[in-house]
Protein backbone atom coordinates (compact mmCIF):
# COMPACT_ATOMS: atom_id res chain seq x y z
CA UNK A 1 0.00 0.00 0.00
CA UNK A 2 1.28 3.44 -0.97
CA UNK A 3 2.27 5.51 2.09
CA UNK A 4 -0.11 8.22 0.95
CA UNK A 5 -3.00 5.77 1.00
CA UNK A 6 -5.16 5.67 4.11
CA UNK A 7 -7.31 2.81 3.01
CA UNK A 8 -7.78 0.42 0.17
CA UNK A 9 -10.97 -1.55 -0.31
CA UNK A 10 -11.34 -4.32 -2.86
CA UNK A 11 -14.36 -6.25 -4.03
CA UNK A 12 -16.79 -5.01 -1.40
CA UNK A 13 -20.18 -6.69 -1.53
CA UNK A 14 -23.05 -5.97 0.80
CA UNK A 15 -26.74 -6.75 0.98
CA UNK A 16 -29.14 -5.70 3.74
CA UNK A 17 -31.57 -8.54 3.07
CA UNK A 18 -29.07 -11.13 1.81
CA UNK A 19 -30.94 -11.13 -1.53
CA UNK A 20 -30.55 -7.80 -3.26
CA UNK A 21 -26.94 -6.54 -3.12
CA UNK A 22 -26.50 -2.85 -2.45
CA UNK A 23 -22.76 -2.95 -3.16
CA UNK A 24 -21.62 -5.12 -6.02
CA UNK A 25 -17.86 -5.40 -5.81
CA UNK A 26 -16.60 -1.92 -4.99
CA UNK A 27 -12.90 -1.11 -5.24
CA UNK A 28 -11.75 2.19 -3.77
CA UNK A 29 -8.71 3.97 -2.35
CA UNK A 30 -8.60 6.97 -0.06
CA UNK A 31 -5.47 9.13 0.16
CA UNK A 32 -4.21 11.26 3.00
CA UNK A 33 -5.21 14.93 3.11
CA UNK A 34 -7.62 14.72 0.21
CA UNK A 35 -11.26 15.50 -0.21
CA UNK A 36 -12.78 12.56 -2.00
CA UNK A 37 -16.36 13.00 -3.09
CA UNK A 38 -18.49 10.00 -3.88
CA UNK A 39 -21.28 11.35 -5.98
CA UNK A 40 -24.41 9.55 -6.97
CA UNK A 41 -28.19 9.36 -6.70
CA UNK A 42 -30.03 8.29 -3.55
CA UNK A 43 -30.06 4.53 -3.12
CA UNK A 44 -26.90 3.96 -5.10
CA UNK A 45 -25.09 2.51 -2.07
CA UNK A 46 -22.86 5.50 -1.20
CA UNK A 47 -23.78 5.67 2.48
CA UNK A 48 -23.61 1.90 2.86
CA UNK A 49 -20.08 2.00 1.48
CA UNK A 50 -18.82 4.58 3.99
CA UNK A 51 -20.53 2.78 6.87
CA UNK A 52 -18.63 -0.35 5.86
CA UNK A 53 -15.36 1.52 5.40
CA UNK A 54 -15.88 3.28 8.74
CA UNK A 55 -16.62 0.05 10.57
CA UNK A 56 -20.31 0.68 11.34
CA UNK A 57 -21.31 -2.21 9.06
CA UNK A 58 -19.50 -5.38 8.08
CA UNK A 59 -19.20 -6.28 4.42
CA UNK A 60 -20.47 -9.62 3.10
CA UNK A 61 -17.37 -10.02 0.96
CA UNK A 62 -14.24 -8.13 0.03
CA UNK A 63 -11.33 -6.80 2.00
CA UNK A 64 -10.43 -3.44 3.48
CA UNK A 65 -6.86 -2.53 4.33
CA UNK A 66 -6.17 0.47 6.54
CA UNK A 67 -2.84 2.24 6.51
CA UNK A 68 -3.53 3.55 10.01
CA UNK A 69 -3.13 1.78 13.31
CA UNK A 70 -6.06 1.66 15.73
CA UNK A 71 -8.54 2.78 13.10
CA UNK A 72 -11.38 3.29 15.61
CA UNK A 73 -9.50 6.22 17.11
CA UNK A 74 -8.50 7.74 13.79
CA UNK A 75 -11.82 7.68 11.98
CA UNK A 76 -14.55 10.27 12.41
CA UNK A 77 -18.07 10.62 11.07
CA UNK A 78 -20.22 13.57 10.08
CA UNK A 79 -23.86 12.77 9.53
CA UNK A 80 -26.60 14.63 7.71
CA UNK A 81 -28.53 15.11 10.91
CA UNK A 82 -25.43 16.16 12.93
CA UNK A 83 -25.97 13.60 15.71
CA UNK A 84 -24.66 15.79 18.48
CA UNK A 85 -25.21 14.75 22.11
CA UNK A 86 -27.80 17.30 23.21
CA UNK A 87 -27.01 16.80 26.91
CA UNK A 88 -23.46 18.10 26.44
CA UNK A 89 -22.14 21.44 25.24
CA UNK A 90 -20.25 21.57 21.93
CA UNK A 91 -16.99 21.64 23.88
CA UNK A 92 -18.05 18.62 25.99
CA UNK A 93 -19.11 16.77 22.82
CA UNK A 94 -15.61 17.34 21.44
CA UNK A 95 -13.96 16.43 24.73
CA UNK A 96 -15.90 13.15 24.95
CA UNK A 97 -14.95 12.37 21.33
CA UNK A 98 -11.29 13.07 22.15
CA UNK A 99 -11.40 10.90 25.27
CA UNK A 100 -13.08 8.02 23.45
CA UNK A 101 -10.22 8.29 20.95
CA UNK A 102 -7.71 8.19 23.87
CA UNK A 103 -6.74 11.80 23.42
CA UNK A 104 -7.02 14.83 25.69
CA UNK A 105 -6.03 18.27 24.52
CA UNK A 106 -8.22 21.35 25.02
CA UNK A 107 -5.85 23.37 22.84
CA UNK A 108 -6.71 21.20 19.83
CA UNK A 109 -10.43 21.87 20.33
CA UNK A 110 -9.87 25.63 20.60
CA UNK A 111 -7.53 25.68 17.57
CA UNK A 112 -9.93 23.75 15.36
CA UNK A 113 -12.90 25.74 16.67
CA UNK A 114 -11.05 28.91 15.75
CA UNK A 115 -10.40 27.63 12.23
CA UNK A 116 -14.03 26.57 11.84
CA UNK A 117 -15.22 29.87 13.31
CA UNK A 118 -17.32 28.57 16.18
CA UNK A 119 -15.26 29.58 19.23
CA UNK A 120 -18.19 31.65 20.48
CA UNK A 121 -20.59 28.69 20.60
CA UNK A 122 -18.28 26.12 22.21
CA UNK A 123 -20.08 26.31 25.56
CA UNK A 124 -23.58 26.23 24.16
CA UNK A 125 -25.81 23.19 23.93
CA UNK A 126 -26.68 21.78 20.50
CA UNK A 127 -30.35 22.60 21.08
CA UNK A 128 -29.42 26.29 21.17
CA UNK A 129 -27.68 26.29 17.77
CA UNK A 130 -28.74 26.99 14.20
CA UNK A 131 -28.43 24.21 11.60
CA UNK A 132 -25.29 25.82 10.16
CA UNK A 133 -23.68 26.03 13.60
CA UNK A 134 -24.76 22.45 14.31
CA UNK A 135 -23.10 21.11 11.18
CA UNK A 136 -19.90 23.03 11.95
CA UNK A 137 -19.97 21.65 15.49
CA UNK A 138 -20.41 18.14 14.12
CA UNK A 139 -17.41 18.66 11.83
CA UNK A 140 -15.38 19.95 14.79
CA UNK A 141 -16.27 16.90 16.87
CA UNK A 142 -15.45 14.54 14.01
CA UNK A 143 -11.85 15.77 13.76
CA UNK A 144 -11.09 16.05 17.51
CA UNK A 145 -8.43 13.60 18.61
CA UNK A 146 -5.85 11.79 16.47
CA UNK A 147 -8.33 11.57 13.56
CA UNK A 148 -6.92 11.06 10.06
CA UNK A 149 -10.01 10.24 8.04
CA UNK A 150 -13.54 11.64 8.28
CA UNK A 151 -16.48 10.02 6.53
CA UNK A 152 -19.21 12.53 5.76
CA UNK A 153 -22.65 11.17 4.96
CA UNK A 154 -24.60 13.82 3.04
CA UNK A 155 -23.17 16.51 5.32
CA UNK A 156 -25.01 19.32 3.53
CA UNK A 157 -28.30 17.51 3.00
CA UNK A 158 -30.30 19.78 5.28
CA UNK A 159 -28.46 23.03 4.69
CA UNK A 160 -29.24 26.03 2.51
CA UNK A 161 -26.89 26.90 -0.34
CA UNK A 162 -24.88 29.40 1.71
CA UNK A 163 -24.28 26.91 4.49
CA UNK A 164 -23.50 24.15 1.99
CA UNK A 165 -20.76 26.28 0.55
CA UNK A 166 -19.45 27.07 4.04
CA UNK A 167 -19.20 23.39 4.96
CA UNK A 168 -17.21 22.47 1.87
CA UNK A 169 -14.94 25.45 2.37
CA UNK A 170 -14.41 24.16 5.86
CA UNK A 171 -13.37 20.74 4.56
CA UNK A 172 -11.00 22.47 2.22
CA UNK A 173 -9.43 24.39 5.13
CA UNK A 174 -9.10 21.28 7.27
CA UNK A 175 -7.77 18.85 4.70
CA UNK A 176 -4.22 19.70 5.78
CA UNK A 177 -5.03 17.76 8.96
CA UNK A 178 -7.45 15.04 7.83
CA UNK A 179 -8.80 13.38 4.71
CA UNK A 180 -12.51 13.78 3.98
CA UNK A 181 -14.51 11.09 2.25
CA UNK A 182 -17.71 12.88 1.35
CA UNK A 183 -20.81 11.12 0.17
CA UNK A 184 -23.20 13.47 -1.54
CA UNK A 185 -25.71 13.88 -4.27
CA UNK A 186 -25.15 17.62 -4.19
CA UNK A 187 -23.40 19.23 -7.18
CA UNK A 188 -21.56 21.70 -4.89
CA UNK A 189 -19.59 18.80 -3.38
CA UNK A 190 -17.79 18.24 -6.67
CA UNK A 191 -16.44 21.78 -6.77
CA UNK A 192 -14.31 21.39 -3.62
CA UNK A 193 -13.20 17.79 -4.15
CA UNK A 194 -9.70 16.68 -5.04
CA UNK A 195 -11.23 13.59 -6.60
CA UNK A 196 -14.79 12.77 -7.56
CA UNK A 197 -16.03 9.24 -7.96
CA UNK A 198 -19.46 8.48 -9.34
CA UNK A 199 -21.52 5.67 -8.01
CA UNK A 200 -24.59 4.07 -9.38
CA UNK A 201 -26.46 0.92 -8.45
CA UNK A 202 -23.76 -0.37 -6.12
CA UNK A 203 -20.86 0.10 -8.51
CA UNK A 204 -18.26 2.85 -8.80
CA UNK A 205 -18.27 3.96 -12.40
Amino acid sequence: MNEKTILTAEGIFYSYDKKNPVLKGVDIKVFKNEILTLYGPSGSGKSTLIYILGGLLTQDAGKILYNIDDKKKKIGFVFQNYNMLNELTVFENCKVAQNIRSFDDDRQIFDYADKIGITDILYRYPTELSVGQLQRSAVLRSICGPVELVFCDEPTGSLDSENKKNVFELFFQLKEYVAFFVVSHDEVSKKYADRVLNMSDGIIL
Partner: protein
Amino acid sequence: MTNKRFTDKAVFSLVKGFIKKSRKSFKFPTIAIAIGVWGLIVITSVVNGFDRLLIDSITRFYPHITVAGKSDLYFSGVKEKMFFNLDNSMVAFNGSFEYVQLMDCDDMSFLGSSVISGQPENGAAIGKELSEYLNVSLGDELTVFKIKGIIPIAKKYKVVSLFKTGVYIFDSKFLVINDKDSVKNFTAYYFEDPLKAGEYKNKYFSYSPAYTWKESNKTLTQTVEIDGLIALLITVFIVLMAGFSVSNSITFSILTRKKEIGILKSLGMKNIDIQKVFISESLIISVVGYLLGLVGGMLTVTMLDFFKIKIPSGIFYVDYLPVSLNLSITASSFFIITGIVVFISFLTTRMISGIDTLEALKDE
Protein backbone atom coordinates in the same frame (compact mmCIF):
# COMPACT_ATOMS: atom_id res chain seq x y z
CA MET B 1 -2.70 8.69 30.47
CA THR B 2 -3.87 5.12 29.89
CA ASN B 3 -6.74 4.28 27.56
CA LYS B 4 -8.85 3.39 30.59
CA ARG B 5 -8.27 6.82 32.14
CA PHE B 6 -9.38 8.50 28.91
CA THR B 7 -12.48 6.32 28.76
CA ASP B 8 -13.30 6.97 32.41
CA LYS B 9 -13.08 10.70 31.71
CA ALA B 10 -15.51 10.30 28.81
CA VAL B 11 -17.85 8.22 30.99
CA PHE B 12 -17.70 10.84 33.74
CA SER B 13 -18.48 13.70 31.33
CA LEU B 14 -21.39 11.77 29.84
CA VAL B 15 -22.87 10.86 33.24
CA LYS B 16 -22.51 14.44 34.44
CA GLY B 17 -24.13 15.79 31.28
CA PHE B 18 -26.97 13.26 31.24
CA ILE B 19 -27.80 13.79 34.91
CA LYS B 20 -27.63 17.57 34.58
CA LYS B 21 -29.90 17.72 31.55
CA SER B 22 -32.25 14.82 32.28
CA ARG B 23 -32.90 15.22 36.00
CA LYS B 24 -36.60 14.51 35.55
CA SER B 25 -36.05 10.97 34.33
CA PHE B 26 -33.94 10.21 37.39
CA LYS B 27 -36.55 11.50 39.83
CA PHE B 28 -38.87 8.49 39.89
CA PRO B 29 -36.30 5.74 40.58
CA THR B 30 -34.54 7.99 43.12
CA ILE B 31 -37.81 8.62 44.96
CA ALA B 32 -38.69 4.90 44.76
CA ILE B 33 -35.41 3.95 46.43
CA ALA B 34 -35.73 6.77 48.97
CA ILE B 35 -39.23 5.59 49.96
CA GLY B 36 -38.01 1.99 50.18
CA VAL B 37 -35.06 2.89 52.39
CA TRP B 38 -37.20 5.22 54.48
CA GLY B 39 -39.72 2.41 55.04
CA LEU B 40 -36.95 -0.07 55.74
CA ILE B 41 -35.39 2.15 58.40
CA VAL B 42 -38.69 2.97 60.11
CA ILE B 43 -40.04 -0.58 60.09
CA THR B 44 -36.80 -2.22 61.21
CA SER B 45 -36.39 0.45 63.88
CA VAL B 46 -39.85 -0.31 65.28
CA VAL B 47 -39.20 -4.07 65.13
CA ASN B 48 -35.81 -3.50 66.74
CA GLY B 49 -37.40 -1.20 69.31
CA PHE B 50 -39.87 -3.89 70.36
CA ASP B 51 -37.10 -6.48 70.48
CA ARG B 52 -34.71 -4.38 72.51
CA LEU B 53 -37.43 -3.31 74.89
CA LEU B 54 -38.51 -6.90 75.30
CA ILE B 55 -34.96 -8.06 75.96
CA ASP B 56 -34.32 -5.12 78.32
CA SER B 57 -37.55 -5.79 80.17
CA ILE B 58 -36.90 -9.51 80.54
CA THR B 59 -33.30 -9.10 81.62
CA ARG B 60 -34.06 -6.28 84.04
CA PHE B 61 -36.38 -8.63 85.94
CA TYR B 62 -35.67 -12.25 85.20
CA PRO B 63 -32.40 -13.89 86.39
CA HIS B 64 -29.89 -13.99 83.59
CA ILE B 65 -28.84 -17.45 84.70
CA THR B 66 -30.76 -19.63 87.15
CA VAL B 67 -28.67 -22.36 88.76
CA ALA B 68 -30.19 -25.22 90.77
CA GLY B 69 -28.95 -25.20 94.36
CA LYS B 70 -26.89 -22.64 96.16
CA SER B 71 -23.92 -21.55 94.11
CA ASP B 72 -21.03 -19.65 95.71
CA LEU B 73 -19.36 -18.99 92.39
CA TYR B 74 -18.56 -15.36 91.67
CA PHE B 75 -16.72 -14.14 88.60
CA SER B 76 -16.01 -10.99 86.61
CA GLY B 77 -19.12 -9.80 84.78
CA VAL B 78 -21.52 -10.66 87.61
CA LYS B 79 -23.54 -7.62 88.67
CA GLU B 80 -25.75 -9.22 91.27
CA LYS B 81 -26.40 -12.60 92.81
CA MET B 82 -29.27 -13.85 94.98
CA PHE B 83 -30.90 -17.03 96.19
CA PHE B 84 -34.56 -17.70 95.47
CA ASN B 85 -37.46 -20.11 95.02
CA LEU B 86 -40.02 -20.05 92.25
CA ASP B 87 -43.37 -21.74 92.94
CA ASN B 88 -46.91 -21.73 91.63
CA SER B 89 -49.15 -20.07 94.19
CA MET B 90 -52.44 -18.35 94.63
CA VAL B 91 -52.78 -14.83 95.96
CA ALA B 92 -55.96 -13.39 97.39
CA PHE B 93 -57.12 -9.95 98.45
CA ASN B 94 -60.58 -8.77 99.44
CA GLY B 95 -62.31 -11.74 97.82
CA SER B 96 -60.35 -11.52 94.57
CA PHE B 97 -57.69 -14.10 93.81
CA GLU B 98 -55.20 -14.95 91.08
CA TYR B 99 -52.78 -17.76 90.33
CA VAL B 100 -49.24 -16.42 90.26
CA GLN B 101 -45.57 -17.29 90.07
CA LEU B 102 -44.26 -16.67 93.55
CA MET B 103 -40.65 -15.54 93.54
CA ASP B 104 -39.32 -15.83 97.05
CA CYS B 105 -35.86 -14.28 97.23
CA ASP B 106 -33.39 -13.30 99.90
CA ASP B 107 -32.74 -9.92 98.33
CA MET B 108 -35.30 -7.89 96.38
CA SER B 109 -32.86 -5.24 95.22
CA PHE B 110 -32.75 -6.82 91.71
CA LEU B 111 -36.13 -5.14 91.07
CA GLY B 112 -34.19 -1.85 91.01
CA SER B 113 -35.33 0.29 88.08
CA SER B 114 -38.56 -1.69 87.63
CA VAL B 115 -39.94 -0.32 90.92
CA ILE B 116 -42.57 2.36 90.36
CA SER B 117 -43.48 2.95 94.02
CA GLY B 118 -42.47 1.85 97.53
CA GLN B 119 -39.31 0.13 98.76
CA PRO B 120 -38.81 -3.55 97.85
CA GLU B 121 -37.85 -4.75 101.38
CA ASN B 122 -39.46 -7.02 103.97
CA GLY B 123 -42.77 -7.74 102.29
CA ALA B 124 -44.27 -8.32 98.86
CA ALA B 125 -43.56 -6.54 95.58
CA ILE B 126 -46.43 -6.84 93.15
CA GLY B 127 -46.61 -6.25 89.41
CA LYS B 128 -48.65 -3.23 88.31
CA GLU B 129 -51.08 -5.29 86.21
CA LEU B 130 -51.65 -7.75 89.06
CA SER B 131 -52.14 -4.92 91.57
CA GLU B 132 -54.80 -3.39 89.32
CA TYR B 133 -56.50 -6.77 88.86
CA LEU B 134 -56.63 -7.40 92.62
CA ASN B 135 -57.19 -3.71 93.38
CA VAL B 136 -54.22 -3.73 95.74
CA SER B 137 -52.31 -0.65 96.93
CA LEU B 138 -49.15 -0.11 98.92
CA GLY B 139 -49.60 -1.11 102.56
CA ASP B 140 -52.40 -3.63 101.86
CA GLU B 141 -52.01 -7.19 103.15
CA LEU B 142 -52.16 -10.05 100.67
CA THR B 143 -52.80 -13.68 101.49
CA VAL B 144 -50.49 -16.04 99.68
CA PHE B 145 -51.36 -19.75 99.47
CA LYS B 146 -48.50 -22.15 98.97
CA ILE B 147 -48.59 -25.92 98.82
CA LYS B 148 -46.21 -27.71 101.10
CA GLY B 149 -46.46 -31.39 100.23
CA ILE B 150 -50.19 -31.77 100.03
CA ILE B 151 -50.98 -29.17 102.66
CA PRO B 152 -51.91 -25.67 101.61
CA ILE B 153 -50.27 -23.00 103.74
CA ALA B 154 -51.60 -19.45 103.87
CA LYS B 155 -49.36 -16.56 104.82
CA LYS B 156 -49.95 -12.83 104.87
CA TYR B 157 -47.56 -10.32 103.27
CA LYS B 158 -47.69 -6.56 103.29
CA VAL B 159 -47.40 -4.90 99.88
CA VAL B 160 -44.24 -2.77 100.14
CA SER B 161 -43.61 -2.09 96.46
CA LEU B 162 -45.19 -1.97 92.98
CA PHE B 163 -43.11 -2.79 89.93
CA LYS B 164 -43.53 -2.52 86.20
CA THR B 165 -41.12 -4.41 83.94
CA GLY B 166 -42.94 -3.73 80.67
CA VAL B 167 -43.43 -7.46 80.07
CA TYR B 168 -47.10 -8.22 80.58
CA ILE B 169 -46.56 -11.76 81.83
CA PHE B 170 -44.19 -10.55 84.59
CA ASP B 171 -46.35 -7.60 85.57
CA SER B 172 -49.55 -9.62 85.75
CA LYS B 173 -48.39 -13.00 87.03
CA PHE B 174 -45.41 -12.43 89.31
CA LEU B 175 -45.38 -11.76 93.01
CA VAL B 176 -41.97 -11.19 94.60
CA ILE B 177 -41.65 -11.83 98.33
CA ASN B 178 -38.84 -11.80 100.83
CA ASP B 179 -39.46 -14.72 103.24
CA LYS B 180 -36.50 -14.94 105.58
CA ASP B 181 -37.63 -18.28 107.01
CA SER B 182 -37.77 -20.29 103.79
CA VAL B 183 -34.90 -22.32 102.40
CA LYS B 184 -33.88 -21.14 98.92
CA ASN B 185 -33.28 -23.78 96.26
CA PHE B 186 -31.97 -21.72 93.34
CA THR B 187 -29.25 -19.16 92.66
CA ALA B 188 -29.95 -16.22 90.38
CA TYR B 189 -27.14 -14.44 88.56
CA TYR B 190 -27.50 -10.98 86.98
CA PHE B 191 -24.69 -9.85 84.66
CA GLU B 192 -23.36 -6.53 83.41
CA ASP B 193 -24.12 -7.79 79.88
CA PRO B 194 -27.12 -10.15 79.86
CA LEU B 195 -26.37 -11.15 76.26
CA LYS B 196 -23.29 -12.97 77.58
CA ALA B 197 -25.43 -15.35 79.66
CA GLY B 198 -24.99 -18.20 77.16
CA GLU B 199 -21.24 -17.72 77.13
CA TYR B 200 -21.05 -17.68 80.97
CA LYS B 201 -23.28 -20.73 81.20
CA ASN B 202 -20.93 -22.72 78.95
CA LYS B 203 -17.88 -21.43 80.78
CA TYR B 204 -18.93 -21.67 84.44
CA PHE B 205 -22.05 -23.81 84.70
CA SER B 206 -21.61 -26.51 82.09
CA TYR B 207 -21.78 -29.25 84.73
CA SER B 208 -24.69 -27.88 86.79
CA PRO B 209 -28.37 -27.63 85.93
CA ALA B 210 -28.54 -24.01 84.79
CA TYR B 211 -30.85 -22.04 82.51
CA THR B 212 -30.24 -18.74 80.81
CA TRP B 213 -32.96 -16.10 80.61
CA LYS B 214 -33.39 -17.01 76.94
CA GLU B 215 -34.02 -20.68 77.76
CA SER B 216 -36.43 -19.78 80.56
CA ASN B 217 -38.40 -17.34 78.39
CA LYS B 218 -38.42 -19.22 75.10
CA THR B 219 -41.79 -17.91 73.94
CA LEU B 220 -40.71 -14.32 74.38
CA THR B 221 -37.24 -14.76 72.89
CA GLN B 222 -38.70 -16.63 69.92
CA THR B 223 -40.71 -13.47 69.24
CA VAL B 224 -37.41 -11.64 68.85
CA GLU B 225 -36.15 -14.26 66.41
CA ILE B 226 -39.37 -14.02 64.37
CA ASP B 227 -39.04 -10.24 64.40
CA GLY B 228 -35.51 -10.61 63.03
CA LEU B 229 -36.86 -12.80 60.25
CA ILE B 230 -39.56 -10.23 59.47
CA ALA B 231 -36.92 -7.48 59.33
CA LEU B 232 -34.85 -9.63 56.97
CA LEU B 233 -37.87 -10.26 54.72
CA ILE B 234 -38.66 -6.54 54.61
CA THR B 235 -35.04 -5.83 53.68
CA VAL B 236 -35.14 -8.44 50.90
CA PHE B 237 -38.37 -7.03 49.46
CA ILE B 238 -37.09 -3.47 49.58
CA VAL B 239 -33.79 -4.43 48.00
CA LEU B 240 -35.62 -6.27 45.23
CA MET B 241 -37.98 -3.34 44.76
CA ALA B 242 -35.01 -0.97 44.49
CA GLY B 243 -33.27 -3.29 42.04
CA PHE B 244 -36.30 -3.66 39.79
CA SER B 245 -37.12 0.02 39.98
CA VAL B 246 -33.64 0.90 38.78
CA SER B 247 -33.68 -1.88 36.19
CA ASN B 248 -36.97 -0.50 34.89
CA SER B 249 -35.63 3.02 34.74
CA ILE B 250 -32.46 1.89 32.97
CA THR B 251 -34.43 -0.07 30.39
CA PHE B 252 -36.56 3.04 29.82
CA SER B 253 -33.44 5.17 29.72
CA ILE B 254 -31.75 2.89 27.17
CA LEU B 255 -34.84 2.77 24.97
CA THR B 256 -35.27 6.54 25.04
CA ARG B 257 -31.57 7.22 24.51
CA LYS B 258 -30.96 4.85 21.62
CA LYS B 259 -29.76 7.71 19.49
CA GLU B 260 -27.16 8.78 22.06
CA ILE B 261 -25.99 5.16 22.23
CA GLY B 262 -25.69 5.14 18.44
CA ILE B 263 -23.69 8.38 18.51
CA LEU B 264 -21.31 7.01 21.13
CA LYS B 265 -20.88 3.82 19.14
CA SER B 266 -20.18 5.84 16.00
CA LEU B 267 -17.54 7.78 17.93
CA GLY B 268 -15.87 4.45 18.65
CA MET B 269 -16.98 3.92 22.24
CA LYS B 270 -17.01 0.27 23.29
CA ASN B 271 -20.23 -1.36 24.49
CA ILE B 272 -18.79 -2.00 27.94
CA ASP B 273 -17.92 1.69 28.30
CA ILE B 274 -21.43 2.72 27.25
CA GLN B 275 -22.72 0.23 29.82
CA LYS B 276 -20.54 1.99 32.39
CA VAL B 277 -22.38 5.26 31.70
CA PHE B 278 -25.75 3.69 32.52
CA ILE B 279 -24.42 1.67 35.46
CA SER B 280 -22.84 4.83 36.92
CA GLU B 281 -26.16 6.62 36.57
CA SER B 282 -27.99 3.86 38.41
CA LEU B 283 -25.31 3.84 41.09
CA ILE B 284 -25.80 7.58 41.58
CA ILE B 285 -29.59 7.06 41.69
CA SER B 286 -29.24 4.38 44.35
CA VAL B 287 -26.77 6.37 46.47
CA VAL B 288 -28.85 9.58 46.30
CA GLY B 289 -32.06 7.59 46.91
CA TYR B 290 -30.46 5.79 49.84
CA LEU B 291 -29.21 9.02 51.41
CA LEU B 292 -32.62 10.69 51.02
CA GLY B 293 -34.30 7.61 52.53
CA LEU B 294 -31.74 7.54 55.33
CA VAL B 295 -32.37 11.18 56.25
CA GLY B 296 -36.16 10.68 56.05
CA GLY B 297 -35.99 7.44 58.03
CA MET B 298 -33.80 8.87 60.76
CA LEU B 299 -35.99 11.95 61.10
CA THR B 300 -39.07 9.75 61.40
CA VAL B 301 -37.41 7.48 63.97
CA THR B 302 -36.29 10.52 65.99
CA MET B 303 -39.83 11.91 65.90
CA LEU B 304 -41.38 8.58 66.92
CA ASP B 305 -38.90 8.35 69.77
CA PHE B 306 -39.63 11.93 70.85
CA PHE B 307 -43.43 11.83 70.64
CA LYS B 308 -43.84 8.29 72.10
CA ILE B 309 -46.85 7.28 69.98
CA LYS B 310 -49.49 5.52 72.13
CA ILE B 311 -50.41 1.92 71.31
CA PRO B 312 -52.95 -0.39 73.03
CA SER B 313 -51.15 -1.90 76.04
CA GLY B 314 -53.48 -4.91 76.24
CA ILE B 315 -52.19 -6.17 72.89
CA PHE B 316 -48.55 -5.16 73.14
CA TYR B 317 -46.35 -5.36 76.20
CA VAL B 318 -45.66 -1.64 76.05
CA ASP B 319 -48.06 1.28 75.81
CA TYR B 320 -46.00 3.34 73.34
CA LEU B 321 -44.29 2.58 70.05
CA PRO B 322 -40.69 1.74 70.91
CA VAL B 323 -38.09 2.59 68.26
CA SER B 324 -34.41 1.78 68.09
CA LEU B 325 -32.36 2.31 64.93
CA ASN B 326 -31.06 -0.99 63.64
CA LEU B 327 -27.57 0.12 62.62
CA SER B 328 -26.46 -3.19 61.15
CA ILE B 329 -29.49 -3.44 58.82
CA THR B 330 -29.27 0.28 57.96
CA ALA B 331 -25.59 0.01 57.03
CA SER B 332 -25.72 -3.37 55.33
CA SER B 333 -28.81 -2.37 53.30
CA PHE B 334 -26.68 0.36 51.67
CA PHE B 335 -24.15 -2.16 50.41
CA ILE B 336 -26.83 -4.69 49.46
CA ILE B 337 -28.96 -2.12 47.60
CA THR B 338 -26.02 -0.61 45.69
CA GLY B 339 -24.63 -4.07 44.97
CA ILE B 340 -27.96 -5.36 43.65
CA VAL B 341 -28.53 -2.16 41.66
CA VAL B 342 -25.10 -2.44 39.99
CA PHE B 343 -25.64 -6.13 39.28
CA ILE B 344 -29.13 -5.64 37.82
CA SER B 345 -27.89 -2.59 35.89
CA PHE B 346 -25.10 -4.67 34.42
CA LEU B 347 -27.56 -7.35 33.31
CA THR B 348 -30.00 -4.78 31.91
CA THR B 349 -27.37 -2.77 30.05
CA ARG B 350 -26.16 -5.85 28.21
CA MET B 351 -28.93 -5.04 25.72
CA ILE B 352 -26.73 -2.15 24.55
CA SER B 353 -24.50 -4.55 22.63
CA GLY B 354 -27.55 -5.65 20.64
CA ILE B 355 -28.40 -2.13 19.52
CA ASP B 356 -27.58 -1.55 15.87
CA THR B 357 -25.56 1.65 15.49
CA LEU B 358 -27.14 2.79 12.25
CA GLU B 359 -30.68 1.99 13.40
CA ALA B 360 -29.98 3.86 16.63
CA LEU B 361 -28.68 6.91 14.76
CA LYS B 362 -31.99 7.08 12.88
CA ASP B 363 -33.92 7.00 16.18
CA GLU B 364 -35.66 10.27 17.07
